[in-house]
């Protein structure tokens, strides 16, 4: 059953939206979503790596011997992560400091390796780009949404702007680690309800 290009792109936005449908790559999701800006920044960085590595893996899919393919994918991904790291140091230094070790850790984000293995190694470059872009944007949206909930409740701000009046007492619980776990768990529950599963 061949899917159209548009279908490959949109499946990442709802049907297979990470990390809710594909429960993969949870660490950055929990760690960087203290605010909307951080969540979106991380999402965009991951999308970039995802699209580039999908493209390269797909172009090289007939050249890479299948026995050492995972090692090859990891090197490809690590290369693009280094590119992102250097780009962010040059153009978005404050964000780079905020995200800290989670930028190099995109290498071990299971979503990126998962897409390379499950999709890009079997499809042509154009479909692979569509898949990478779709999954990447879905991931960015999820991070943004989780970041929004945690920032609004935990700091009383949205993207740095104040939402509630000054009398609002923020739930600092939400920006700490336990808040991240509980919040993601409840969002997963809502997604299950909405998806009718």
């Amino acid at each position: 059953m061949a899917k159209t290009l548009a279908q490959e792109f949109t499946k990442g936005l709802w049907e297979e939206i990470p990390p809710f449908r594909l429960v993969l790559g949870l660490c950055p999701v929990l760690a960087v979503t203290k605010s909307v800006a951080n969540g979106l920044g991380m999402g965009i960085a991951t999308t970039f790596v995802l699209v580039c590595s999908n493209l390269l893996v797909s172009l090289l899919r007939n050249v890479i011997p299948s026995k050492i393919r995972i090692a090859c994918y990891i090197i490809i991904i690590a290369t693009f992560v280094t590119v992102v790291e250097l780009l962010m140091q040059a153009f978005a230094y404050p964000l780079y400091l905020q995200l800290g070790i989670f930028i190099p850790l995109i290498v071990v984000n299971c979503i990126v390796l998962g897409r390379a293995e499950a999709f890009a190694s079997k499809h042509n470059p154009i479909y692979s780009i569509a898949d990478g872009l779709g999954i990447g944007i879905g991931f960015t949206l999820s991070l943004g949404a989780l970041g929004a909930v945690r920032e609004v409740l935990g700091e009383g701000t949205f993207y740095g702007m104040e939402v509630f009046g000054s009398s609002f007492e923020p739930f600092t619980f939400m920006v700490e680690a336990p808040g991240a776990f509980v919040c993601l768990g409840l969002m997963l529950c809502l997604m299950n309800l909405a998806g009718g599963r």
Partner: protein
Amino acid sequence: MGDIFVLIISCIFINNIVLAQYLGNCPFLGTSKKMETAVGMAMAVLFVMVMAGVITWVVNNYFLVTLGIKFLRTIAFILVIASLVQFVEMFLKKSIPALYAGLGIFLPLITTNCAVMGVCLINVQEEYTFLQALIASIAYALGFGLALILFAGVRERVILGRVPKPLQDTSIGLVTAGVISLAFMAFKGMV
């Protein structure tokens, strides 16, 4: 001596790798449904994390820094970890088959465990000495094991309860992890 004690306590409890630093969540949620698999994973992580922490420290300080190619750190570290896992697997298969059978499928999974890579990066970023890096790696690995085994214990009980359908599995798992993480926050006042 006092410093080292503080380092150990802070790595195990206060900055617990899973519950406070958000690293290694995939194996934390994936292998915690049964106590047996949780113990297996904890052992495998202890083994690999300590070796990886020490070796990447040496690679970073003696090769990357002296040659002035620090920007290759991400690639170098992931290669070290991936090949280390391979070697450990082959070595155990040959010489200690009992341990190999115990660790089983958890060894290859560790390559993409971000806790291992994370600890290596933390060791380098905090500019630990060799001894500190060694101790921090051991303590972080113990912290990971502690959190995983505690969590597996709670999860085995949760399965027995009646959980609403949409909340089942990962969802309730995350909420449970949140509650355990809340308990670990209490350690923050210790040091």
